[in-house]
């Protein structure tokens, strides 16, 4: 619970020095050495030329500003069903070191990056929500980083919860693997704010999610969020095949259903291991002991590696059976899956991402 992340060094872009969030981070970082830099690119290039830049980047915090758009549609993946999700890229990258993490390959900048121009988030968000005022939008911060892993340094969750609780056409999700919820739970609950945890079997969490709390601890944190009055969600993603996976996932689903008041589960998503081919080399180099690359992964429609379809269907059917032993009405959806898999497993094939978004936001109708 107290295993908070602290970087070994902080770089601050000169132009980002006088933001309130910068001051807050420096105050909370205590004696961690910091350096004011003119251009972040120099530091990024320097680190990228070292052996294992990802590991060095994870020990280094960069304070800068987002000069582009904070809010972006989740890119999903070509050829598979999306869910019309929007992401707020407030902080980028993650100090946890999961074997399968796409960020190892997706980002040019390996540093843990905090964007301190918070006012721009609200300004851009106001504009974005007003443009889509007739729809319920699903928005989250946990795509290019963990939503809560830096929260003890930034209080980011409080700002976001405070902002979104007033926005009735938004469902806001904080997605994490951590137990860093103390700050966030200070905020009174709101029906349109969901705390979500990425879950996996304990074996996968132990072997492939370096630095992340155990699944039991994550579920305990989720339990605290529910006790505080929040809705929670769970993402079984990536589901990974290994000898004994059925028992491993049965255990975590049972644990989840026993620990959490299931009526407070907003949704559960399922996604099996998938990655672009360029990530293969990175995983092989950085995690030579991992075996996740060596199951039957074929090229999908999007060119990414994913399990052969019958194996994915088997994974999903098994997990859904585990979940539905207790409750059949928790909304379950797939992340980056084909219409055929939806039809085969969930007996419905969404016509598009909007339909998935509607399916997931319907139970929240009253908060619109």
């Amino acid at each position, binding site marked *: 619970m107290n295993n908070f992340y602290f970087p070994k060094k902080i770089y601050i872009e000169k132009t980002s020095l006088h933001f309130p969030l910068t001051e807050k981070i420096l105050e909370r970082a205590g004696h961690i050495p910091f350096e004011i830099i003119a251009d972040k690119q120099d530091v990024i290039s320097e680190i990228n030329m070292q*052996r294992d830049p990802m590991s060095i980047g994870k020990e280094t915090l960069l304070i800068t500003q987002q000069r582009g758009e904070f809010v972006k549609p989740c890119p999903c993946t070509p050829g598979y069903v999306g869910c019309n999700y929007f992401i707020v890229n407030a902080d980028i990258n993650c100090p946890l070191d999961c074997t399968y993490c796409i960020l190892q390959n997706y980002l040019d900048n390996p540093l843990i990056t905090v964007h301190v121009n918070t006012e721009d988030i609200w300004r851009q968000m106001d504009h974005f929500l007003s443009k889509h005022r007739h729809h319920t939008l699903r928005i989250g911060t946990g795509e290019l980083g963990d939503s809560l892993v830096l929260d003890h340094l930034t209080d980011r969750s409080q700002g976001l919860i405070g902002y979104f609780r007033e926005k009735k056409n938004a469902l806001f999700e904080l997605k994490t693997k951590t137990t860093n919820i103390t700050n966030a739970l200070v905020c009174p609950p709101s029906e349109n704010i969901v705390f979500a945890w990425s879950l996996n079997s304990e074996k996968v969490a132990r072997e492939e999610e370096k630095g992340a709390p155990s699944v039991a601890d994550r579920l305990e944190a989720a339990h605290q969020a529910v006790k505080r009055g929040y809705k929670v969600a769970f993402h079984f993603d990536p589901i990974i095949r290994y000898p004994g996976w059925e028992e491993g996932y049965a255990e975590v689903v049972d644990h989840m259903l026993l620990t959490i008041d299931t009526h407070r589960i907003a949704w559960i998503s399922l996604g099996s291991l998938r990655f672009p081919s360029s990530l293969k080399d990175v995983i092989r180099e950085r995690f030579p002991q991992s075996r996740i690359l060596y199951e039957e992964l*074929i090229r999908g429609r999007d060119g990414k590696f994913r399990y*052969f379809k019958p194996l994915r269907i088997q994974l999903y059917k098994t997990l859904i059976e585990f979940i539905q032993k207790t409750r059949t009405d928790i909304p379950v959806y797939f992340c980056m899956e084909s219409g055929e898999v939806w039809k085969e497993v969930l007996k419905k094939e969404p016509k598009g991402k909007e339909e998935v978004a509607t399916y997931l936001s319907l139970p929240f109708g009253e908060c619109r």
Partner: protein
Amino acid sequence: MRSENIQLDHINVQDERYRISYYFDLEALIHSIRRIGLIHPPVVTHRNGEILIVTGWKRILACQSLSHFSIPCCVFEEGNDLNVFRLGLEENRTFRSFTILEKAEIVKRLIRFGVSEKVVVRDYLSLLAIPQTMNHLDTYLRIVSLEPETKEFVHEKGVGFPVLKLLVFYSEEERRILLPLLRPLGQNKQQDLLRNLLEISKRDGIPARDVLGAEDIQEISAKENLSPLQIAEQIRNLVLRKRYPTLFAWKDAFETQKKALGWPVDIRIEPSPNFEDEEFTVHFSFKTFDEYMERLAKLNVFASQEKIVPLLRSSPDRNE
């Protein structure tokens, strides 16, 4: 730098400290020198009373084999090995691009001459058209440590970086077993074989040599009526099957169902790649209208649900 005619037997060809090229074909150069003489003089330097080659190993060896008495050289007097090597590097760079093996030698020598890995990545890799990452440096250092037999193969087959990147993961003993299999294959297939073998080895937690030593693979290797290409192809296919057992069970089930239904051999029906989509492709060719009608008539036999559905739903489970 000064020009000097130097007696060939005064040049020390044992000291290879600046040498980056080991694998080359001298014949073309010998032929050229015999016809029109040496155009471009090699560069040499002095060390402890010896004359060492900085650039132009091929030219000097060619002149030696032509029994020339002397050779015109540029003499570069510089006491620092790194500076001498850098000159040679620049000289070569202006004339030609380097092979992968030469790049690997250059990287190794830069480090030997005291350049830090960080500086090699920052200042030299881009000159060699190598991405500026430590991973690339590490791979080139592994390449330079390959045994001569493998390097000879790399040179002879013009093996590219994607294949070499995989080859360095194998042990010397495994590479010795692999070379005859790789030799007749094209680069994509070489890559395919190396990747799948490595992945089976990791998946099953056994050395690649044990995967290759399996009875079914040994049986193929022992077939005397097969050419080296046929052996390599059959082993590559077998390794592929071992890597993707479920996928191949599905492919086999599809083929079995096709045969059981009597699907015409001159009309191709294929599932989507890796069965990822529910789409099937039917393909046939014809020359005349009659042939066209004949193919359609054959297809028409499958125009009922009972006939076609078993094929579309073929799976190993259904065949059990």
